[in-house]
């Protein structure tokens, strides 16, 4: 069996940045496993701009952003095994992968999970109706439009206001299709505010909040969808149904971290994020296995994926170079009042990066609230915010100095409180 220092599962933005993070820290024997023929992941089909504002202080397209990382990976001579699908990972860090040369087993000293996420399909929503041609996830439609050069349809309804759906509303409009509406089950959009403004408002595309598709109609091709307003339990309200004639329905109804391999490796997953539970080093519950990017929790901005993944890379490298796990003194980060989850879930003040970004999402829209950080029951910081929405990932910064000031605090709590 081939033995390597570090295996990175996935060559998208997370995997590429993780490789660079590990390499910079001194680990050179790295393999990136990529199932596609080209690295870069979903960025390859994201031809719109807006990537890299935080990292490079300029607006890049998705492929340009990926290229900057890829060039560094190639310069560092880190091998990428393309067209290679990882089938299994054991808790003992043996990877089974397959490509056109055969099936291989590789034992790694550390593994970074960077598989990304997938889109929630129609079946998971159990939308009633027929099963004609013309129903796509927004990402599939994006690939057909941007990479293959074909329109998926001419008269389009988009269910869900996730970012890919919003981006596709604009893209399809620019390519000559007519987007009738974006229909969102929740009373708020799950996409970024800037995407709502730039992709819907600028093109006069209506965003119908608290609405859903109740039926798909059409035998061969989609002919129409029925939509209805929903009540506060998200159930359709009788009498509010309306028929929208269309030939295409795009779904942008959520992203699910792709954690099948994590499960086979025995990694503990969070029921909230669907991703691994990690400490401040982004190590999972299985020693030597780390996670970053959208497989850990779904991000809005690739810049934060890169930042997080560099940390995972550095952490994995340190783990490999020390050749043993360090004794950790974990302090839990507790979520309260409006905070759905945090990444990480635990922190060791002695071992953590200083300062450390703790990322989280809120459960609903909050106007004029404060993000509060408690050490034990002592309020340490409190930041006023004009608006908090589930669609935008938030973060707080923890420093070693704070932990020293509150030495002995059993936990850190993050809560949303009225201003």
């Amino acid at each position, binding site marked *: 069996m081939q033995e390597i220092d570090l295996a990175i599962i996935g060559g998208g933005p997370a995997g590429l940045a993780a490789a660079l993070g590990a390499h910079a820290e001194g680990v050179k024997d790295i393999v990136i496993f990529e199932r596609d023929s080209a690295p870069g992941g979903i960025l390859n089909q994201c031809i719109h701009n807006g990537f890299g504002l935080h990292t490079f202080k300029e607006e890049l397209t998705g492929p340009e952003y990926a290229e900057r990382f890829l060039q560094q990976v190639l310069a560092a001579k880190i091998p990428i095994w393309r067209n290679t699908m990882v089938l299994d990972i054991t808790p003992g860090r043996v990877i089974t992968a397959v490509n*056109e040369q055969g099936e291989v087993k590789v034992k790694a000293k550390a593994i970074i999970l960077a598989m990304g996420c997938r889109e929630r399909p129609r079946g998971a929503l159990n939308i009633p109706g027929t099963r004609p*041609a013309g129903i796509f996830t927004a990402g599939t439609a994006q690939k057909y439009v941007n990479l*293959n050069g074909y329109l998926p349809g001419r008269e389009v309804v988009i269910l869900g206001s996730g970012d890919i759906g919003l981006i596709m509303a604009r893209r399809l409009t620019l390519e000559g299709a007519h987007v009738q509406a974006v229909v969102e089950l929740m009373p708020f959009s799950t996409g970024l505010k800037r995407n709502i403004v730039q992709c819907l408002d600028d093109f006069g595309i209506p965003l119908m909040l608290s609405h859903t598709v109740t039926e798909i109609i059409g035998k061969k091709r989609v002919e129409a969808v029925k939509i209805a307003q929903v009540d506060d339990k998200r159930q359709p309200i009788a009498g509010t149904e309306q028929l929208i004639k269309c030939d295409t329905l795009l779904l942008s109804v959520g992203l699910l971290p792709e954690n099948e391999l994590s499960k086979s490796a025995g990694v503990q997953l969070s029921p909230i994020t669907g991703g691994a539970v990690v400490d401040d080093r982004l190590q999972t519950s299985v020693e030597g296995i780390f996670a970053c990017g959208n497989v850990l929790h779904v991000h809005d901005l690739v810049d934060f994926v890169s930042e997080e993944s560099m940390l995972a890379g550095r952490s994995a490298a340190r783990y490999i170079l020390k050749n043993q796990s360090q004794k950790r003194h974990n302090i839990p980060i507790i979520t309260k009042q409006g905070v759905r989850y945090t990444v990480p879930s635990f922190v060791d003040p002695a071992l953590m990066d200083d300062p450390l970004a703790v990322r989280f999402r809120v459960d609903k829209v909050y106007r004029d609230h404060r993000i509060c950080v408690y050490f034990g029951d002592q309020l340490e910081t409190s930041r006023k915010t004009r608006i908090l929405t589930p669609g935008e990932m938030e973060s707080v910064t923890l420093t070693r100095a704070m932990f020293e000031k509150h030495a002995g605090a059993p936990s850190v709590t993050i809560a949303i409180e009225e201003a």
Partner: protein
Amino acid sequence: MGYDVAIIGGGVIGCAIARELSRLRLNIVVLEKECDVAAGSSKANSGIVHGGHDCTPGTLKARFNVEANPMFDELSKTLDFPFKRNGSLVLAFEEDQIPKLEALKQQGIANGVPGLEIIGRDEIVKLEPNISDTVVAALQVPTGGIVCPYEMTFAFAENAAANGVTFRLNFFAETIEKRDGLFYISGPAGEVTARVLINAAGLYADTVNNMLSKHPITITPRSGEYCLLDKTEGDLVSHTLFQLPTKAGKGILVTPTVDGNLLLGPTSHPIADKDDKATTRAGLQEVLQTAQKDVQHLPVNKVITSFTGLRATAEGDDFIIGPSPDVENLFNVAGIASPGLTSAPAIAQYVAGLVAQATHAEQNPDFQPVRRAFPRFRHMTDAQRQKAIAENPDYGHIICRCEQVTKAEILAAIRGPLGVHDIDAIKRRTRAGMGRCQGGFCLMRIPEIVAQELHIPLNEVTKNGSGTNLLMDPDKQSL
């Protein structure tokens, strides 16, 4: 084209009959209006090999069900389709339902069903640890089994094709006339003639019969909605769980599938439109609510897809099988609702016998009974995978991650004996797109493989027959 026998309908019945008839020296054609066989009721049903306890004694349903059930072990090996004799349980939720189980048992015994036992709660819990707290007793049907209904149909069809049967897909039999002892069957795709006509047209068996016979039949579609759960839930139960049957049928069942998913359904509602395969909000709710009665904590949030199948029910609620009373050499195989899938092998033997008598055909000395499905990567050992990839590198190229389907299998489906190339046809042959992501990854890749293999542009690739193109215009045409 002139044939000895034309079979209208490429469902499990038509294909099973075609395979059985290919044992004889006959020139046979199967005419199927859709782009693939198993495109109607045969692809969307419970996939159950029923014991036969719930058929009314003396009916054709009882006869063919009980006759066919024991054939499956051998047949599934010869034709290489998935089959598992997992046993069925008919559940009672109240003490006062136990006499009904007893009546069902007696009916089964009258039909000749072996091994029926009524078992108490303790024994049920041993068999099914996740059974609902409210279950008090069950009728155990050890001969019950599960199959993949479309794989079974493909197996019959491919073996028939290998033995010389012609398959005309996309052939809609619009008009049928009989002149001078010959049937003339024509439609947009052309005309064929045949000396013997077998009506296995499923929901449209009435239309076919009534074009020729003065003895009309009526087929009423009965819709059945299903929910399919993720493979993570496939081990929740090992038996097929029925509730007590009602006038509408065997009721909503909970069963593992041969592929490892959990299947819930069907509802049973008569509908007017024979093409209406829409699921409904009420129907899906009925499925989930009824199924929850059988199992403790049924994870209804693990539904990965839902679908509707239509059963072809005839008046009198029995199969109509045999020669037409007034049209010589017309054989009807109609009203094949449940247990039609189970009965198919026995029906096929019976109908083939009738045709043999009518045609005096000799045995086909070249008949080859064995059919092999193409090898599946997901079923291979590590060593088999190495060998398969060494011989054909496409076996090392995974296209569908959830179901571990390789490019080699996609190509094998396209290059198979029936010449299918629609995305849904490929899906049913390979399982690509049937996993929990429902095609999120592979739906971007399979159309490219089809386009490449058929030398057609991407926007000519269809999902399920003409008019179901996935994509529209090239978007940068004017540049």
